[in-house]
């Protein structure tokens, strides 16, 4: 515990209040923190939309090559972050047919919000899928079978039985995915230096001005993330008490 807390507390308490106030008045700082929050949110949303069916399939079915699929999903966790960025850029460039195609569609990955979201989704997805998969696994398939045997379609079974039981794990998955996404730096800085997300700005401030001016930005980012996640947790806890 001390190992985690000590350096963080040291960093959080280092900047003075005047510095903190000055920093949050800086439009660039606010913009970058907001960009961080909403790109991470978007990444979590994409993970929710595309990850949920995949997690469900993995939780409910056994098939040949399942282990392989699961390992592939875990890949983004083990790949060094800059490599993720380089990999995405090499696909997004004009020298690759995918890059050529999305270029013609007018989408730019390098140095764009779209690029940031792609990277954050890439690194956050495994956290969402794994969390939700174990959520689904903890729900007995018998409940679904009963529902199906009583005439409900697969879709309505999912939305009336599975979803109400699993939504909390989905929320946790979203929080995990967003948390992972908001902390990403190594891959993002390769794909998009500008527009600057907060971790990139912290790095830029550190390089251009030194520790003193990067710390307050870091403190604000940690503070805002902590509040957001705390609110989400409280919301879920609150519901649990009611039921």
């Amino acid at each position: 515990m001390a190992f985690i807390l000590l350096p963080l507390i040291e960093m959080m308490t280092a900047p003075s209040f005047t510095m903190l106030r000055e920093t949050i008045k800086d439009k660039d700082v606010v913009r970058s923190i907001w960009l961080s929050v909403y790109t991470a949110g978007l990444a979590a949303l994409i993970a929710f939309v595309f990850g949920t069916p995949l997690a469900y399939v993995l939780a409910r079915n056994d098939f040949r090559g399942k282990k392989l699929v699961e390992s592939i999903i875990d890949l983004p966790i083990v790949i060094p972050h800059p490599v993720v960025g380089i990999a995405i850029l090499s696909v997004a460039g004009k020298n690759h047919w995918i890059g050529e195609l999305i270029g013609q569609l007018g989408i730019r990955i390098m140095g764009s919000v779209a690029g940031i979201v792609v990277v954050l989704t890439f690194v956050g997805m495994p956290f969402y899928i794994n969390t939700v998969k174990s959520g689904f696994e903890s729900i007995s398939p018998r409940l679904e079978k009963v529902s199906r045997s009583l005439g409900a379609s697969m879709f309505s079974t999912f939305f009336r039985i599975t979803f109400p039981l699993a939504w909390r794990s989905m929320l946790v998955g979203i929080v995990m995915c967003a948390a992972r996404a908001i902390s990403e730096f190594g891959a993002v800085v390769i794909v998009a230096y500008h527009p600057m997300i907060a971790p990139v700005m912290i790095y830029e401030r550190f390089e251009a001005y030194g520790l003193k001016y990067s710390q307050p930005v870091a403190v604000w980012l940690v503070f805002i993330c902590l509040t957001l996640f705390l609110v989400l947790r409280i919301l879920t806890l609150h519901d649990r008490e009611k039921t």
Partner: protein
Amino acid sequence: MKKKSRRRLFLAVLPVFALLAASLVIFPQTGAAKDQQLSGTLTMFHAGSLSVPLAAMEKAFESKYPGVDLQREAAGSQKCARKISDLGKPCDIMASADYKVIDKLLIPKYADWNVRFATNQLVLCYTDKSAYADTVNADNWHEILQKKDVVWGHSDPNLDPCGYRSLMVIQLAEKKLNKPGLYKQLIANRPKENIRPKSVELISLLQTGNMDYAWEYLSVAVQHGLKYIVLPDEINLGNYKYDDVYKNAFVEVTGKKPGTKMIIRGKSCTYGVTLIKNAPNRAAAIAFLEYMLDPEGGLRILKDMGQPPFVPCRVPTPEMKKALPAELQKLVEVKN
């Protein structure tokens, strides 16, 4: 089997050691004795544009002194200095792509002297897949960089000397070509997204086809096998004889705190190297510098890789020459 061969090796090495020991007794101050003593890790922070020649020097140096492990960290020159001054990271040697960074951020608190050892110049890099790759040349590059379908970039002027130098080259071109407004027109076609922290990062963007043209040092272009356009000496920031012309170009970069600015004026690209005062491995650091600043050692490698060295290396004042470790004094001259 293994034991046997080890014993054989031992037997073979024994006479060598005996000889060495004997020579130690006879000539206690020989180089051989020094080579034996040097060991441990040697930490060096350096500009990204020195990565390739330093890798070659590292190899040569470590084979000469097998006990020493040279660990290099490449970053923008400013960042290297910040790591020492702000983070207090232990470091033995720091080499900057702009020798002024050492003067500004490290002397006098973290270093005593600053040796200028090589030069460089700015070139415009591209690949054969870049847009207009078959028509671009030293006369029309500024027209091509204004085309809407061309993506070009440079590194962050606030973090990397190569960044502000790229901007200076364009300013100098505006003056030389007598085309007022050229700088503004070019920058208007370079969205902020095309700026990267380090110039070396732009290369992967070129190679993956995410970018068409990038401003780089000549050395970087040579080492990465890129195509490049060489510009006249009056604008390429490579020849110190034109320092009077170069200083007409200036770029505003961020100052010591956010919101403040400071102006950097054009000057020829000159590399500087220094020994950090509380270097953890001072003896090995001096040995490395002795090799690096040797015209037959490191300087030759620099020459082969597109970074013309100063032979001999230069310090600005006689006082600074005196502040150098004795081993290095013979390798430098006083010249401003």
